[in-house]
């Protein structure tokens, strides 16, 4: 049974679902991170060594590069969403909060770009 009035139902107006945007993205990224981080942990544990040649040849595989880029992007996204909530909770002063949120967002953007750049550089053969 719908509690909406007949007029409301005909007009189809209502929430644009924007209110749950942050919540939904946090869930979406968390679901994606379950297999991505599991793959990453298993990969680290099964790498024969952490010598440059070994790590670089691992990262040159297309599947590795693809999953690493996904991991970096989704993890920084999820982290940004999470840290944002923490800042909103713990930094009450509006000015300090805005500054902190700006810095947090910039830092996450930098991490995402740097991570993707590093993986691409190795995967595309730029690294010596």
């Amino acid at each position, binding site marked *: 049974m719908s509690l909406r009035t007949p007029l409301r139902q005909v007009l189809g107006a209502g929430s644009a679902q924007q209110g749950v945007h942050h919540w939904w993205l946090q869930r979406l990224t968390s679901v994606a991170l379950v297999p991505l981080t599991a793959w990453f942990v298993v990969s680290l544990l099964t790498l024969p060594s952490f010598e*440059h040649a070994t790590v670089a040849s691992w990262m040159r595989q297309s599947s590795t590069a693809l999953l690493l880029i996904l991991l970096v992007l989704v993890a920084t996204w999820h982290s940004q969403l999470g840290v944002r909530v923490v800042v909103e909770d713990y930094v009450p002063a509006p000015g300090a909060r805005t500054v902190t949120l700006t810095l947090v967002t910039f830092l996450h953007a930098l991490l995402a770009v740097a991570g993707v750049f590093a*993986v691409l550089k190795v995967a595309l053969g730029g690294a010596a």
Partner: protein
Amino acid sequence: MPARPISPHLSVYKMSRYTLATSFFNRLTGVGLSLGLLLLVYWLMAVAGGAGAEKRAERLLALPAMKPLYAAFIVAYCYHLVAGIRHLVWDTGRGLERSQSRKSAYLIVVVSIALMLLIGYCSFALGSRAP
């Protein structure tokens, strides 16, 4: 500063409450893992920097002082993963009754500790190479 009460209401809740403890630790490990991202990207950049750059990074990453940090990341990852899955189950509307939530609080502690021991054993006990 607004006069209204603001989060976190650390003074009104008892930390011994499992609801607060599991939630607080989830947030704490989440922030910890965010710091871990710094390390991950630093490592990726070092690999991209070539053999010389990675040698320098490796000297830093292989310091004995880094071991407790890696252990902390393993603890944080395992707990945040398992507690996060609990949250996803809650999001489907299941397990929200008080008795169920109390049971799942103990369950995530047990499961995450088991996972910590497994990953910790694989990374520290099996060969000194990792991580």
